[in-house]
């Protein structure tokens, strides 16, 4: 019997993005393996965030952005007629941003926001349990359990980012996109997020953009190197960081670029 190769969780083929007349992403092919962390690295302006936003149609909210090519989730098209409904897509593919951006609401409501929007569970005991579980999985429960009515914006930066992760996982997404989630955090808060990513990998597929080579090396299984709107090299993280095949990749990760 032939060996069963698991279908990638998400794929992109010839994925391109224009901002007005500027071509920011030049036809990217990438397979994102389920249950893994994929790290996107590359110099500033190379299109990492643009690519990430394509995966849950966040570029739709940018007026001058135009997306072409294909992207799929579980084999189903994300764009075009017959594509997944964008609201549903964003429930299945959640996002955590660079700057922690909790809503100016109580911690509880921050986490309950998505489940309420999608009518996942009833208010009361069910919602309480859901909020608690999401905060536990985001390793924040013990720190906030007695202050769930406190404003989310009143937490520390690291706590806010974990709150945003709790908010993202509360709707049980399948994929979580993270755009430089630790860039505003100190080393301890960063380590906690990294530990969290490692745990979440069991239940979610994670794609993370990071400017820290060490972070990419620590948390991901697959690494893709972007440069000028293209993927130059993609491979097992261990291979990329010990013996990259491409000179540009090597120059970038060793700090010999330019």
């Amino acid at each position, binding site marked *: 019997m032939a060996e069963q190769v698991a279908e990638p969780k998400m794929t992109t083929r010839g994925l391109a993005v224009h901002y007005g007349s500027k071509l920011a992403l030049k036809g990217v092919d990438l397979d994102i393996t389920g249950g893994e962390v994929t790290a996107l690295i590359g*110099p500033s302006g190379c299109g990492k965030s643009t690519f990430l936003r394509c995966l849950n149609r966040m570029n739709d909210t940018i007026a001058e952005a135009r997306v072409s090519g294909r992207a799929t989730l579980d084999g189903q098209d994300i764009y075009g007629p017959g594509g997944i409904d964008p609201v549903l897509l964003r429930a299945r593919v959640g996002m955590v941003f660079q700057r922690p951006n909790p809503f100016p609401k109580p911690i509880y409501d921050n986490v309950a926001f998505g489940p309420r929007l999608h009518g996942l569970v009833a208010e009361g005991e069910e919602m309480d349990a859901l909020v608690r579980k999401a905060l536990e999985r985001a390793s924040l429960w013990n720190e906030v359990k007695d202050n769930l009515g406190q404003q989310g914006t009143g937490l520390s930066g690291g706590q806010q980012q974990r709150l945003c992760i709790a908010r993202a996982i509360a709707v049980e997404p399948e994929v979580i996109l993270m755009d430089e989630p630790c860039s505003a955090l100190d080393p301890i808060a960063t380590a906690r997020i990294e530990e969290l990513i490692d745990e979440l990998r069991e239940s979610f597929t994670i794609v993370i953009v990071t400017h820290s*080579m*060490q972070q990419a*090396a620590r948390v991901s299984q697959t690494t893709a190197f972007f440069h*000028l709107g293209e993927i130059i090299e993609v491979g097992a993280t261990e291979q990329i*960081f*010990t*013996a*990259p095949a491409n*000179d*540009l*990749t*090597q*120059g*970038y*990760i*060793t*700090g*010999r*670029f*330019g």
Partner: protein
Amino acid sequence: MTATGEHHIVKSYDVELGKLEDALARMGGLAESQLAAALQALDSRDSDLAGKVMANDGQVDALQSFVDEQTVKVLALRAPVADDLRSVVAALKVAGEIERIADLAANAAKRSLVLNRLPPVEPMRSLLRLGRLAQVMVKDVIDAHLGHDADKALVVRDRDQEIDDVYSSLFREILTYMMEDPRNITPCSHLMFIAKNFERIGDHATNIAELAHFRVLGKAQLEARTKKDDSAFIGGEPV
């Protein structure tokens, strides 16, 4: 931001990697000259020279300590990756191999002091030949490593077979002399140990060749070279 440069953006990183490379070059040069001097001491029965070789061994050890400290420093402060990482890891291991080579050379010099007090024996000529083969191999393999030359490293690695062959035949030769005249047994035993030292130097040079290859190409372990030193079986058959 398009081309990959030879130099790091942070210049002090280049300086630190350069220090490692320099220390390795000095260690390699020292080990080679220590071995050459040990051979010279054996050949000309020069006990003074042998004493110098023994005294100089400390220099190699000091350089190895420097390489140890420098690699730990670079690993901690720079978190090297890709070819930088391979260079640093290889430097640490190559320094260990060179230290062993120098140690074996010093030990050969030490045994020559005893030999110089005994009458000369014939197999010395073959022993010197073995030692020179080892010396050339050490020089070439260190050049290959410092010159990032993976092909040359593989060529040098294959030369270890020649050393093993010469060692096996020298072993037989020494046995013959010992059986011929019991008075030869003491000098021949020392010769035998020195021969083993030179054969081991070939093995360490082989290890360096593999590290040089890894450093350049990043491939994991090369296929193990099959050892054909049959001296372990000599004696169970008519010699």
